[in-house]
């Protein structure tokens, strides 16, 4: 008994061009879509391509449908997660690849986050490190001095800014 949710021609066509589509195009959503929109789109596309909806397919068609289904899940996993989505947006803006592996997306985010916390430039990292050392030694003024230095190299580093603000708060509380 044949059970298939979608025209076989559509499966073949999509399988052929799948690698040329970014995740937004694959899920048929706009790049600025909300997470809710993305979830809804994932549900809609799954209805057509999930293996459960296509048990009747055999051979090459079944294989192709499986590929699409797995790619759709991948797209959903990346786009529903703000951090992964950011890493993906960055990647496709550079234009080198339309896919991102999940672990890679997470790692890219972690790198970015670590840069925010510890600095993206050698000097930034150096002065941030000194600020941390000062802080551990209880030298609040020194820590402020050093994080300010770090900010001269990385003026837009939100992590540094937050640290400076916090140090100022502490100083205020002390005096």
């Amino acid at each position, binding site marked *: 008994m044949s059970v298939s949710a979608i025209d076989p021609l559509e499966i073949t066509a999509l399988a052929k061009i799948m690698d040329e589509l970014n995740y937004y195009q694959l899920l048929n959503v706009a790049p600025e879509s909300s997470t809710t929109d993305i979830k809804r789109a994932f*549900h809609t596309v799954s*209805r057509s391509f999930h293996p459960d909806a296509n*048990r*009747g397919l055999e051979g090459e068609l079944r294989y192709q449908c499986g590929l699409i289904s797995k790619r759709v899940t991948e797209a959903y996993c990346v786009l529903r997660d703000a951090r992964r989505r950011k890493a993906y947006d960055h990647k496709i803006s550079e234009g080198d690849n339309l896919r991102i592996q999940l672990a890679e997306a997470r*790692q890219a985010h972690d*790198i970015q986050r670590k840069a925010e916390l510890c600095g993206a430039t050698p000097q930034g990292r150096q002065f941030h490190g000194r600020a941390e050392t000062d802080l551990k030694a209880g030298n609040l003024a020194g820590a402020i001095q050093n994080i300010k230095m770090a900010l001269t190299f990385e003026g837009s580093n939100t992590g540094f800014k937050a640290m400076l603000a916090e140090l100022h708060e502490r100083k205020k509380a002390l005096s």
Partner: protein
Amino acid sequence: MAEIAVGIDLGTSNTCVSLMRDGKVEVLDNAYGERTSASVVHFHEDGSVEVGNSAKAKVIHAPAQTISSAKRLIGRFYFSEEVKKAQAIYAYEIVEAPNHGVRIEIREEEFSLPEISAMVLREMKQIAERHTGESVTKAVITVPAYFNDNQRQATKDAGRIAGLEVLRILNEPTAAALAYGFGMGLNQRVAVYDLGGGTFDISVLEIGKDIFEVLATCGDTFLGGDDFDDRILDLLADDFVAKYGINPRNDPYAFEKLKLAAENAKKGLSVDEEVLVSIDDVLKNDKGEAMGLERTITRAEFGQLVQDLIMRTFKVCDEALQQSDLTVRDLDGVILVGGPTRLSIIREAVTAYFQQEPRADVDPDEVVSMGAAIHAASLVGEATDSMLLDVTPLDLRIGVAGGLAEPVIERNTPVPIEQTRTFTTFQDFQESVQIRVYQGDNRLAEDNVLLGQFEFSGFEPGQRADVSIDVTFEIDADGIVNVTASDQVTGEAASTQITLSSGLDDAEIQKLIEDDIADRVATAATPEAVVAEAMPEAVNPLVAAPRVTSLFGDDAEDLSMDGQPDLDADLDADLDADLELDLDADADMDLDADLKIGLQPAATPRVVSKPAAGSNLNLDTDALGDLDLDSADLESMDDEELIQLTDEAPPEITQEIPLDLPIKDADPAIGLDAGDDNDFFDTSGADLSDPEEPVNLNGKE
């Protein structure tokens, strides 16, 4: 006409089969009118096999020939904690098979766990065939959401051995949610709290009309109703020791008596404030005098005994909610699954934790098999529009240098999914790499479950780091793992369906199917008189379910089987009688009646049914390529010369290929310290490695 496909909830303690016909789901009762059957297999002296509640009653007299809780052992390695625990608890002989497999030895014959489970499944198949009058060859079988790939594979194998094409391995909480929300047009977020006999699962789902999306699932495969029994058992045994100075745990018969008494006391406590456990004859002393035990257990006392177990379930719930980015206030409903959730102590704790009453209209013993039946019907084309979107419960990892396992697909990622990682060799002209796949949440490889390993050599050897090997990991909709390695240059590929190295290989399964091992399961005949006579005895008030769950909007009568007397009437009368547990091993005939577990007269006529289904097997072996692992492969790996890296071998799996440290060839531009191996795969030190950079695979020379 649509094909017949049943849903089977293969539980640790009880198994239940359901069928969806003409848009309605019915739980199929067995020949004795019972809607669930004990997942117990008893081997008679003549080699024939009895399954179900009557088999369970045999445990007192023949504990070594009566296999219960096989689900706790299926898909496990012999050295695992669970196997050790089972050896301490169960009287049957658990022995080691090649490659750390587990076998059960009965009367000098060895059986694998899939074979034992296949016998239970065969019984379900026969029940379904009795109801439909047709051969039943297709089924959806449920497993705890937290089951790993080994356990899923082994369960699927059990289905095949039983003569069933397993349409889908379905997660129990997902099945429960489907039964709960099917056809209701709900828009809800629900939690399914599934405390079975041996496992605990919590799943958080979003139901949007007929789409059932699992947001997160977490679990503990070492926590279940059996552990609650054990606490009472310990109490009773300690009492006995205090009174007589003899440990009844050392005597298998006494132990079984206490175990049954504990189980019944637990059930009693879900109805009454206190129960009296009274056993005349736990053991006999030297003079042949009976040594008995009498003990009152109150609900409060029981509560204290199991407090920590209940708290453990909520820790897992915390995790699931956190993973789905929800709080208890976001939930519209809580569904309870599993017999132990009938305990008032659990219901109260669940209500407090989730800040709402759990749904009362879902039968915890039957809802899973009903959901499985709904899904089975949809898979064979009986019109249902429901769609299940499930997740993988555990991180899928690959073994890398330094004894670590790097995640490739994180837990709670939707399935089906495929991910590809690029690896490189770490030695010049290395000819092959070992690919080892794990499941678990630990960075240390040895703390995870090894799913399988294979060697890939289909690449052109070259300078280290010049060779790029793509390893593709796939998890299918059953949650089953498939791994493929291919070389980007040669295009050569090798793949394997990861097979449990201690499990059965395809040839063994094929042989079991041909031998029709499950055919030993005798099925009970059902003369009306026998059924009617058995009926009042048959009712265990805590197992006998309300006739119908209202969730399908059917009138209660719709689902009750024609010709079966209504069981409910006897319930109340039986309850009180049940609480006093009068165990007397000498009075064999009385025993069953007293325990309320002997659910059928011993003299029930039996016939052995010849399976008509054997020829229908769909042996969908996804075995691919030439790297399919079998025991021979594993053994031969032993002998090869390997680079020994760590002094500490992983426990027990001594034939593992020790890992090596790659690292040296990192791109200096990204500031990777040579030798700083631990950070290489550490996500916390992720700034040290470029995600684009291939990761080294350990290998051998």
